């Protein structure tokens, strides 16, 4: 009886998630009347703007991930090692982006760094790109920090650090050869969320006037019928591919069992 109830709830949940997805995919295949075809996908992929914005956002998300890892891993490591009392505060700080809307942040940026300010970042393309990168990094901070901090919890950071120090290792070696490899799976899950956030982000990219994938999606959605659905399907496929990759990485990292012990 209990079993049946559990299964029907699962089934209901499944339908709830899958039905809209199925609808989306079905519609994206229906550009040609009467037959299923990949016409919408062909049109989308042939659009030079698609390729430009997509590439731009992929590059930006990779840079954001790189920056995030370089910022978050040493920070979380240091807080755990030397300032455990500060952990709640740092955690609170990293949660701020969830409370402060992106639009507030980006207006702040524009006000602080406009062409007549002391640091006119918005005046140049590179400056705007840099600002956008910082904005993305901030948006991903809550997920990145939590993922890394959870990863650090599974190893004895203090003792491993001391062991490495007694063997002559400096901070860079410790971070690169001991800490990072042991939290790699956690870092990857944070990276995946970051990737998803950056690929879909609209507000910051639009207001800083950068050619990102988010504003392009919005533009297509407002003007076309079938193409947005093809785009959404593509975006969704990317997300799932990322998740699959994380599973693979977890499976093949031989030492994760030890890291948990």
């Amino acid at each position, binding site marked *: 009886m209990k079993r049946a109830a559990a299964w029907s709830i699962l089934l209901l949940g499944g339908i709830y998630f899958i039905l809209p997805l199925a609808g989306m995919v079905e519609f994206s295949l229906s550009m040609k009347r009467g037959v299923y075809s990949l016409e919408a996908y062909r049109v989308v992929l042939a659009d030079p703007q698609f390729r430009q914005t997509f590439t731009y956002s992929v590059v930006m998300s990779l840079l954001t991930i790189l920056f995030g890892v370089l910022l978050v891993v040493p920070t979380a490591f240091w807080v755990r090692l030397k300032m455990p009392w500060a952990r709640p505060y740092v955690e609170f700080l990293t949660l701020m982006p969830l409370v402060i809307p992106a639009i507030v942040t980006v207006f702040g940026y524009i006000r602080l760094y406009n062409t007549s300010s002391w640091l006119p970042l918005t005046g140049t393309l590179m400056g705007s790109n840099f600002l956008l990168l910082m904005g993305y990094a901030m948006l991903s901070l809550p997920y990145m920090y939590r993922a890394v901090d959870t990863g650090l919890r599974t*190893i*004895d950071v203090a*003792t*491993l650090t*001391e*062991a*490495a*120090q*007694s*063997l*002559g*290792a*400096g901070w860079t*070696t410790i971070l690169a*050869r*001991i800490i990072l*490899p*042991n939290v790699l799976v956690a870092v990857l899950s944070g990276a995946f969320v970051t990737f998803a956030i950056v690929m879909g982000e609209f507000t910051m990219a639009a207001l800083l006037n950068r050619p990102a994938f988010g504003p392009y999606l919005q533009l297509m959605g407002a003007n076309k019928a079938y193409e947005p659905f093809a785009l959404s399907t593509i975006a969704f496929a990317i997300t799932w591919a990322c998740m699959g990759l994380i599973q693979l990485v977890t499976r093949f990292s*031989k*030492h994760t*069992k*030890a*890291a948990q*012990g």
Partner: protein
Amino acid sequence: MSFLTIEHLEKSFGPNRVVKDFNLTIEKGEFISLLGPSGCGKTTVLRMVAGFETPTSGAIHIDGKDVVRLRPNQRSIGMVFQAYALFPNLTVAQNVGFGLKVNGTARQEIQSRVEEMLSLIGLPDLGARYPFQLSGGQQQRVALARALAPRPQVLLLDEPLSALDAKIRVSLREEIRAIQQKLGITTIFVTHDQEEALSISDRIVVMHQGIADQVGTPFEIYNNPATRFVAGFVGTLNLMEAKVIDAEKGVTTIGGAPVILGRPLPKGKATLAARPETIRLGRAPGKDTVLAGKITGVNFLGSVIRLRADVGGQVIDFDTFNAPGVPPPTPGTEVELSLSARDLLVIPE
């Protein structure tokens, strides 16, 4: 000049003085144990030698060089931790070679040194395994090999055997001692297990509330404890209150029976002590002092039977060997105990 000297070492955490005026000199190749109860500051002393804690005051010299200001990675020290602390993401061979890789040793040299170390610890075939694929005892041996591979000047071990089960603890401590002697490496070994310290050390430092109560060979520590604490902490000891009859000639009574020490004693009352193994059941040849008592407890330990007797209101534990034909006395039996007055320790107040 000794190889490692620690002078007037002090450490406070806030208002809490954890190590107090600690002095120790260690010769090259010596095996020193820091022995003491939990919280007495053993780990803190060791961590100051390693460089993980900064002394509040005092000096540490290794091979004539002041190391207090050096960072841990500049001290040429090998450290073994209670929790093994192997790097989970590296194989056994990579763990052992880590220190060599960090100091820029050539690849072939690392490989041959790793092989040498792995056969030294008796695990020549496990280089490709990951730490989680090893037993606790194997992991700790790998940790030892990892600490020794870069040829440190000093080896520090902080209760390396505490996490292992009893049998492995005994065999591994002998192995550690054998390796230490083979390499001739200066070693400080922290433990709260007195049997461990007695069995493998050249000298033992007995610590108590941040102070080094006594430094000496296991024989000295066991047979001539310098303080009441050392007497009580190392081994089992019967403390007996004796009434001093003649302080100069060393004549006393214990439980009414006369005991003549022939050594000067404090006036009035003295605390005497005897190891259980120095007391015999019945009148044994060569024992000059006889006490009368009543058996109150019998503890069969196998080859040895530990008996407890009440002698004039004082509790005395003593040992007798198991003999298949002779059952031990039962509680309530009136017995005589014999001992040599010169085996009695006079415990300073």
